[in-house]
């Protein structure tokens, strides 16, 4: 009995020796820098000077954390961090490289409103039916890429269709109504 208890005590001593060899493994994290590698994907950052509001990121986003909300006078690109899965697909599809990935992960908050980020865009309207079509910056971007589009870019797709049909009608009827 006494031998057994002595053995137990020695066993405890052995564990202490092993523990001393291993040293302290616990990270002091909130008081020191976290271990973040280059491969880590964190929250995205939208550069409002580069963003044209085309909605390509909103199309690609799997959980619709990025949304292009189409209003009458403004288009709002809304980013909800609470739903983001950090796949960084938006960065791949962005035509102007406006979206950049960060390594930020310290996003805890008691208020849900803190998790929203939005970019407000101005809108051009159709010259005939005055429906909002696209953002001003997207229009400029398209014209810079395809200069012919300047003639019809401020038309709603429906109005554009009507124009096309009426021009065909004119051609076949010889201009007679």
């Amino acid at each position, binding site marked *: 009995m006494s031998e057994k208890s002595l053995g137990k005590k020695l066993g405890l001593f052995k564990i202490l020796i092993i523990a001393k060899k291993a040293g302290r*493994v*616990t*990270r002091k*994290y*909130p*008081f020191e820098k*976290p*271990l973040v590698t280059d491969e880590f994907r964190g929250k995205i950052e*939208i550069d*409002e*000077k580069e*963003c*044209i*509001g085309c909605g390509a990121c909103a199309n690609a986003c*799997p*959980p*619709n*954390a990025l949304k292009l909300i189409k209003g009458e006078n403004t288009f709002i690109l809304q980013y*909800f*961090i*609470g*739903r*983001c*899965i*950090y796949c960084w697909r938006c960065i791949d599809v962005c035509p102007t490289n406006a979206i950049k990935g960060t390594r*930020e*992960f*310290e*996003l*805890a*908050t*008691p*208020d*849900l*409103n*803190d*998790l*929203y*980020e*939005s*970019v*407000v*865009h*101005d809108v051009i309207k159709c010259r005939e039916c005055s429906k909002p079509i696209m*953002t001003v*910056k997207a229009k400029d971007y398209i014209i810079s890429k395809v200069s012919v589009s300047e003639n019809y870019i401020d038309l709603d797709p429906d109005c554009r269709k009507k124009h096309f049909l009426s021009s065909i009608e004119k051609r076949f009827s010889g201009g007679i109504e």
Partner: protein
Amino acid sequence: MSLEYLKKSIWVFHLNTGSCNACDIEVLDVLTPYFDAERFGVKLVVSPRHADAILLTGPITYESLPKVVKAIESAPRPRIIIALGSCACGGGIWYDTYSTIGGVPELLKILKEHNIEVDGVYYVPGCPVRPESIIYAIGLFKGLVEKKVKRKVKKAGF
């Protein structure tokens, strides 16, 4: 919103509400000696009646909803909810599927209908959450670190 009692040891009841288990593994990771959440007094308990905080992971399926409501109801006041991971914060990729209610913001509406009061909700986004992110959230309860995220509204310019 800072709750004074959260600066003491928080006992947490962990409830999986239909998550993929990634967040649950990270919760387990936080309790290992490497990150060691118990140095802040955080401890997992087996019954919601012992808990100060209910830790929810997952987008809250319709199947788990009555159990979640029951667990929150049986936790003593003051009680808080911690939404862990993107699924709990806003529904994640399941936010509009047929079988989930879409995260804690929707759950709070349901709790309001049933007159169950909750004293605070903390959101910890991440998919899955990093262990450091959870420890940062614990530091936020205790007032050890400062809140970093803030609502931003930018105007597009040239």
